[in-house]
């Protein structure tokens, strides 16, 4: 019986668990319940990916109404792959959160944290799986509202302004998407994405459709923090509780990237978006600027969470760059980086959260001498940091490899060189932290009170991610296979992809 509903389960499980968590109130059982539901969702998304890899596309008609009249969940390799990353990270972050939030969130709000986290997971899963443009908007809002809540839970007052700015920007983005979807609906009379795709063909050169497309892309770009629409992200990630930063940095923007890919590749014709509108050029330039400008900004920050936040903006640049290359390999690089970046950023934010747990600060000065005092945490930070840089045998290297290969396939030597030069900036901003941890003497106040390693419940998920960083950096069969299937599938129906492929070969 569950097989039949596989597509709906990853959304429904956290969605149903959220109100129950809310009623359960404040106890360790709440944590256990939230974590195990998230793990269950993770289990089903694993099955979903397996099913998508073997059967291709799964369609689930909600309410029994066939699309386009009812709402359809549409699962393919691409979204199942991203979903797996999201639900895995969610579970690990929840394990990590139990101790982490003790220090960062008032005790009375712990059950609210778990509820909001599950709502956010449900919203993100919904955004990934839905096949309906308006339903996407609804789940976008579910996840967004939960995200604003999560960000505002921290004890630092600056989290409030960060959350407010996030709320305003996010709502503008969502409204833009709403306008865009409205225009598409106006011209086609349908909301189902697949149906939209087939009916947009008829009106290909319609100015209304083009405007709608532009609005959707801009709206999604706000959500995924594409430079220069990223201004909400650094404060939000900096001042949010560490567990929240770890979760959001590794999932929320990735889902938005997926939504962008989905709209461009399955709803609008790739050919139309890229060849006629020249969107690829715009995206490419923005991505490159994002990589350099944000990496540079990251270098001059003193708050390590801000450093990581700007680094996220830069890494999103890599994902967008991959898709702007308009080739199977480029898209594959984007997908692989979506997955891999979740692994590395999750581990990094967890490590920083662990430092906050013990030291009470995430300023770079607080990291001094921690290499000795918190060896496991800092080792985790170092390995994940090397992964961000793109050192071989870590996942970061795999991402860079595919991205540069994709660029070289089309003889974009300059872009390939720029991508690699971008990693050099990562060397600097990660290096600063590592150097502080291993080569600088602790400040006097820190030297006095003995700093211990964090509880194992925080270390375990952190190290699971770190080991995953190494494992998927060596055994790439799962990521490559899934990402390849995903991008092949997205390119399947477009003629341009095939012609481009022929040119390459």
């Amino acid at each position: 019986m569950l097989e039949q509903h596989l597509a709906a389960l990853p959304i429904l499980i956290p969605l149903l668990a959220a109100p129950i968590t809310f009623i359960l109130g404040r106890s360790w059982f709440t944590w256990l319940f939230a974590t195990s539901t998230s793990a269950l969702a993770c289990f089903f998304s694993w099955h979903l990916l397996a099913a998508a890899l073997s059967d291709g596309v799964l369609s689930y008609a909600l309410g029994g109404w066939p699309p386009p009249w009812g709402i359809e969940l549409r699962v393919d390799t691409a979204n199942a792959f991203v979903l797996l990353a999201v639900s895995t990270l969610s579970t690990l972050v929840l394990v990590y959160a139990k101790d982490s939030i003790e220090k960062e969130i008032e005790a009375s709000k712990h059950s609210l944290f778990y509820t909001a986290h599950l709502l956010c997971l449900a919203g993100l899963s919904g955004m990934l799986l839905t096949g309906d443009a308006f339903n996407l908007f609804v789940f976008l809002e579910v996840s967004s509202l939960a995200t604003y809540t999560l960000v505002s839970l921290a004890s630092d007052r600056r989290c409030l302004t960060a959350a407010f700015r996030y709320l305003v920007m996010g709502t503008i983005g969502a409204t833009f998407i709403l306008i865009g979807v409205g225009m598409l609906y106006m011209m086609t009379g349908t909301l189902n994405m697949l149906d939209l795709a087939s009916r947009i063909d008829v009106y290909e050169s319609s100015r209304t459709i083009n405007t709608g497309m532009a609005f959707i892309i801009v709206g999604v770009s706000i959500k995924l923090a594409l430079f220069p629409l990223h201004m909400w992200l650094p404060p939000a990630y900096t001042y949010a509780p560490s567990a929240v930063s770890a979760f959001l940095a590794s999932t929320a923007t990735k889902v938005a990237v997926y939504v962008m890919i989905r709209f461009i590749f399955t709803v609008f014709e790739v050919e139309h978006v890229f060849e006629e509108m020249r969107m690829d050029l715009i995206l490419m330039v923005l991505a490159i600027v994002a990589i350099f400008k944000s990496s540079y900004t990251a270098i001059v920050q003193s708050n390590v969470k801000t450093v990581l936040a700007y680094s996220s903006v830069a890494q999103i640049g890599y994902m967008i760059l991959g898709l702007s290359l308009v080739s199977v390999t480029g898209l594959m690089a984007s997908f692989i980086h979506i997955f891999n970046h979740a692994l590395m950023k999750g581990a990094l934010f967890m490590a920083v959260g662990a430092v906050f747990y013990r030291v009470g600060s995430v300023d770079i000065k607080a990291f001094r001498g921690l290499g000795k005092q918190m060896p496991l945490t800092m080792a985790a930070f170092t390995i994940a940091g090397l992964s961000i840089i793109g050192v071989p045998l870590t996942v970061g290297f795999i991402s860079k490899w595919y991205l540069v290969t994709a660029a070289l396939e089309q003889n974009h030597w300059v872009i390939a060189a720029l991508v690699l030069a971008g990693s050099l900036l990562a060397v600097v901003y990660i290096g600063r932290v590592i150097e502080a941890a291993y080569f600088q003497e602790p400040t006097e106040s820190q030297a006095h009170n003995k700093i211990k390693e964090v509880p194992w419940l925080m270390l375990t998920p952190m190290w699971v991610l770190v080991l995953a960083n190494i494992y998927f950096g060596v055994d790439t069969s799962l990521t490559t296979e899934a990402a390849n299937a995903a991008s092949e599938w997205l390119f399947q129906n477009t003629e341009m992809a095939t012609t481009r492929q022929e040119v390459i070969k």
Partner: protein
Amino acid sequence: MNLWQNVEPSQLITLSILVPLIGALLVILTGKIPNLREAITLVTATILFSIVLAITDFTFQGEDMHIQVIELFPGLDISFEVEPLGVLFALVASFLWIITSIYAIGYMRGHNEQNQTRFFCCFALAISSVMAICFSGNLLTLFIFYEVLTFSTYPLVTHAGNDAAKKGGRIYLGILLSTSIAFLLLAVLGTYSLTGTLDFRAGGIFDDSHNKVILGGLLVLFCYGIGKAAIMPFHRWLPAAMVAPTPVSALLHAVAVVKAGVFSILKIVIYIFGLEELKTLATTDIMLYIGAATILLSSCIAMTKDNLKARLAYSTVSQLSYIVVGALLASSVASAGAALHIATHAVGKITLFFCAGAIMVASHKKNISEMVGLGRKMPITMVAFAIGAISIIGLPPMAGTWSKWYLTIGALEADKLFIVATLMVSSLLNIAYLLPIPIKAFFNTSSGEQKPWSWADTKEAPLPMLIALSVTSLACFVLFFYPQPLIDLINLIPGVSTEVEMTNNLNGDG
């Protein structure tokens, strides 16, 4: 002599990489008991050397040894394959590891260094990655372990933990990592996108169908991407890394790390570009002249340095470019000379570094100006220094003679008189900056008064260090009289040969 007869030849590669790795683990486990820890280091080094000897044996028997570890990208594995050039490098590195371990025990204890466990552990890790570089079967594997080597040696460079060490470490890591990511990785990926393979193949993987301009660009990217080869202007890391303890400088910065760099260049030139293809590239000449300039300029800089290790460091920069030049001359004899220079320079330079360390431990002197008259206190060390210096200069009866000989012949063969001149001038410069040190140590006295020499005056370094530097200086002799095994090995490299010239010369000398 072959202890490993029963082992599947291909598995020897795995063993050669795993043995130092296991050694590193055991070192960590036994960190509390220094004697056991050092014993483990020595035993591991000896086992490794015997493994490499066995591999050499199989190489001469023409055994094909290769393994594939894991498929990293579709169609691209991490794979290892034995070929003669790698065997040569592995032999040198594993042999010198034993010697250096003996030396390091004396040095580290004599100096009361901190964190000795970390030191020996990272040392073993570095050797493990050097072995992986030696036997790498494709460019991807080479690149990966090249980076691993950089990271595993970083803690060694910053071992002292003071500001100077940190600064040195930052430059070291900064230059090596930046060049490898920005240039080398791009070159590797460029090669992959052009040819669809990264395997090392005899005669190279490029052919005439590829755009010459792009290939020329790739050559420059490779040369500069391999920052470990220290071609100017990316040589700054080498002098900076001299803040490391002397055994590290000795093994890593005279042998393992820098030689890994030039070895990679040589391997890429021979197996990726192919000597024939290389001749047709415009940038080959440009890089050749940059290499020549590096030889001369760094020799000149070496002369101005009063700190002994700094002078040796610049000497290394200069000598490394010999190998680069030899590779880029694109003639089979010059390549043979370059390959041989890996071995001969290694024994010579390691002797010099050993001496520098011995002087530091015994008389706490770092600067050359303070070493006047030191020959009386440390006769053995200084004799060894003189031997090493003569080998580096390239005078008989020391090992360095052969490699310079072949390099010069290669330059003549390639009709590059400018390079011949450079080599000659460089030898003179070598004399100018190396020989005065032992001469002043023996024939001048600091106080000016003449006292008859007696054993009582001597204040030599600890015994393990003396053993080590005696062995390496002896090796300088031995390699002059018995270079044959190495030359045989080099002649196995496809496209590289010393055949014709060698017979003539041996007859002439004999």
